[in-house]
């Protein structure tokens, strides 16, 4: 293989060079066979020919790249399956998929790649990169193609589309969409005398249920917590949205450029007060920031209720099989009235078309994106991943029908999505420094739980930090409100 040969030549050259140059006596006898391990470079490393994914050699086929961030079965099976299906469905475009690590890894690779021309035709990014991508102006809004082709978007979920629509333009195509739900242990509900058919709907009901579900042993140690929330900024964002609170000014940055963080509002404070009160009472556990850990605690029967993404459903169902039954419900709201004014924000990710690619690649990218959004693929995607389909027609697909019959708990996710009004609350915050904000909120939650200040004080400080970051961002991007 070419690469290794060059390395070998270089190594040997280095070695020879140093030999020639460093001999201190002019007539130094050629070095005798040295016994040292150093001599090893003279044996070329044998590298087998790469068995690359065979690219059809046929003329007229456009090769394009797709960067994704899905691990496990989704990245290992579903993505390859979908891309292969696309490749064999037509003969003009050929997609090569590449896993680029976490969303953060992928985004950073894109940033670096923009400076060196190493960019994909299509990239999957998380929801909170939306504003940044718009401001960087490196993507072609899918709206361009939608308009050009008269692509019908009426079947797509309006709430999902709304998230990815900025200034009236749909920028990216939603791909993997999710919302948070309440997951509860049905067996534990029964044991505690709670009705599993009537899971808590409001925060007060949740607290009440958590109290009843908490079990202590003879020594007073808790053996089962009523509930547990991972310290995950996304949950805060969602709880704020369902409370009818804005994350940033200018209606979440949707009616104009966001200039400051506003999550330290009474709605935001109420979330942390509620969280903290349950934590202090010993009915809500804290297993840290990693959602996986909270999920494991739930599966191990150490906590009876958790908040989790809809996408976690299948994994939770599989690993709880034979242990206990899982129930799902809407994300709890501050009060009953809140159900009418707001709902959950769409989470997950979407796919973007990158600008600086040749026209042929862009056209192929659009074909691929349409393929990803097609009812068949979305139905398959749902069954493989647990994300919900971005279009209604997918539910009629047999795969989806069977899957929902097997996992009836999933209906909750669909109902919750459809129950949410489409407004500025549910469209979610739109700021360029969202990753920073999320991480600041996580720090704030930890501070409140540790009693380092009242919810108000801590959130004020966090809002100040995020506002500063927004200001710097706006300056560096040359944005003015």
């Amino acid at each position: 293989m070419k690469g290794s040969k060059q390395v070998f030549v270089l190594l040997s050259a280095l070695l020879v060079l140093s030999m020639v140059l460093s001999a201190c006596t002019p007539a130094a006898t050629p070095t005798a066979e040295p016994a040292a391990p150093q001599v090893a470079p003279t044996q070329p490393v044998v590298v087998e020919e790469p068995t690359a994914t065979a690219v059809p050699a046929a003329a007229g086929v456009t090769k394009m790249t797709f960067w994704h961030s899905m691990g496990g079965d989704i990245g290992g099976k579903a993505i390859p399956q979908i891309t292969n299906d696309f490749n064999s469905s037509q003969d003009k475009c050929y997609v090569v998929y590449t896993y680029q690590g976490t969303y953060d890894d992928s985004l950073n690779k894109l940033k670096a790649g923009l400076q060196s021309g190493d960019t994909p035709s299509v990239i999957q990014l998380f929801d909170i990169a939306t504003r940044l991508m718009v401001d960087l102006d490196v993507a072609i809004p899918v709206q361009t193609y939608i308009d050009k082709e008269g692509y019908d978007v009426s079947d797509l979920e309006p709430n999902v589309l709304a998230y990815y629509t900025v200034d009236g333009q749909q920028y990216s195509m939603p791909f993997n969409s999710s919302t948070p739900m309440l997951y509860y242990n049905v067996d534990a509900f029964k044991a505690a005398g709670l009705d599993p058919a009537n899971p808590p709907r409001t925060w007060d009901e949740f607290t009440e249920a958590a109290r009843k579900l908490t079990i202590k042993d003879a020594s007073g140690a808790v053996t089962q917590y009523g509930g547990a929330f991972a310290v995950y900024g996304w949950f805060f964002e969602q709880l704020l949205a369902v409370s009818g609170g804005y994350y940033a000014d200018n209606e979440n940055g949707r009616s104009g450029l966001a200039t400051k963080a506003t999550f330290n509002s009474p709605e935001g404070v109420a979330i942390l007060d509620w969280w903290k009160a349950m934590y202090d009472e010993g009915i809500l556990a804290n297993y840290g920031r990693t959602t996986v850990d909270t999920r494991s605690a739930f599966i191990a029967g150490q906590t009876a209720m958790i908040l989790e993404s809809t996408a976690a459903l299948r994994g939770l169902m599989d690993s709880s099989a034979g242990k206990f039954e899982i129930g799902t419900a809407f994300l709890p709201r501050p009060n009953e009235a809140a159900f009418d004014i707001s709902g959950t924000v769409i989470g997950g990710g979407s796919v973007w078309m990158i600008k600086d690619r040749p026209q042929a690649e862009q056209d192929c990218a659009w074909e691929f994106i349409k393929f990803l959004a097609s009812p068949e693929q979305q139905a398959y995607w749902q069954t493989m991943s647990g994300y919900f389909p971005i279009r209604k027609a997918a539910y009629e697909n047999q795969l989806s029908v069977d899957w929902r019959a097997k996992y009836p708990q999933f209906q909750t996710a669909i109902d919750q999505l459809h129950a949410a009004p489409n407004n500025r609350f549910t469209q979610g915050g739109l700021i360029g420094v969202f990753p920073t904000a999320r991480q600041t909120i996580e720090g704030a939650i930890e501070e409140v739980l540790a009693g380092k200040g009242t919810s108000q004080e801590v959130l004020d400080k966090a809002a100040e930090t995020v506002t500063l970051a927004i200001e710097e961002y706006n300056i560096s991007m040359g944005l003015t409100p």
Partner: protein
Amino acid sequence: MAVSERISGSHTVGRFKSTGVRQREIKRFFTALLYLLPSLILFSTFTFIPLIRTIGLSTYLTNPLGIAVKFVGLAQYEKLFSTPVFVNSMQRSLLFVAYTVPTSIIVSLGLALLGNLRLKGISFFRMVFSVTIAVSAATASLIFKYLYHPALGSLNYLLSFLNIDPVPWLTNENTALMAVSLGTVWLQIGLNTVILLAAMQGISEELYESAMIDGANYWHKFRSITIPMLSSTFFFLIVVDMLAAFQAFTQIHVLTSGGPLDSTNVLVFSIYREFYFNGAYGFAAAQAVMLFLIMLALTVFQFGVLEKKVFYD
């Protein structure tokens, strides 16, 4: 030639620098340079030139692509010292070094001494004691993530047999840094033990034999022969382990991501956060420069003070 110079070990400085001496000096300099050349070329290309760029970047406000957009002078440094984050991170880094470096060297010394016993099958134990040299930080961190797991972790389970309440290893700000340190020590003992064992094998048997004749006991031999003969190794380990501890990133990334409450947000992680996560390249660059300066100062100090006490022959 030059035997006397080598033996005296000193640089040939002095008033009587003949042309011959000077020529030899120049020749030696260039000979040495040739030996250093391969490394120097690689270091300049891949380490120092990028470093200079980073120093430059630290005086700019950067956009999310890492491109300098506005010269701000030392504003990033002022920001460093005015925000509690940097001060906290520096303190966390120093604590992490203090937790891991002495512990891993002492534990490794113990392991190396055990491995140096003359017993049947000792080579098996030597191998076991140095096994973590073959474990990467990424894999070790995944393993410790499970061991420390708040719900499933086997460490808490084992502790329950000793009637110890579950420890919130990674979820409490008072224990998280120690938990990460414990994993780091485990990871580090392999390399340290290998180096110490190799050095112990190099200590002349005659030294111990003559001490035996003088009637020295184990402890005495340990103090008057083993420790001094290992001084250059200890020096090496202190310097290298310290630098490695300042740069320890993977275990923090996998285990705690800097939390809870920034208790494990050591400098190198804080830089990562600003650089990779927040896209604040200029600010990250300023932190990187500070971290570099701190390590440089400590290393120069160690060479100035400690190496004088090292015994090389």
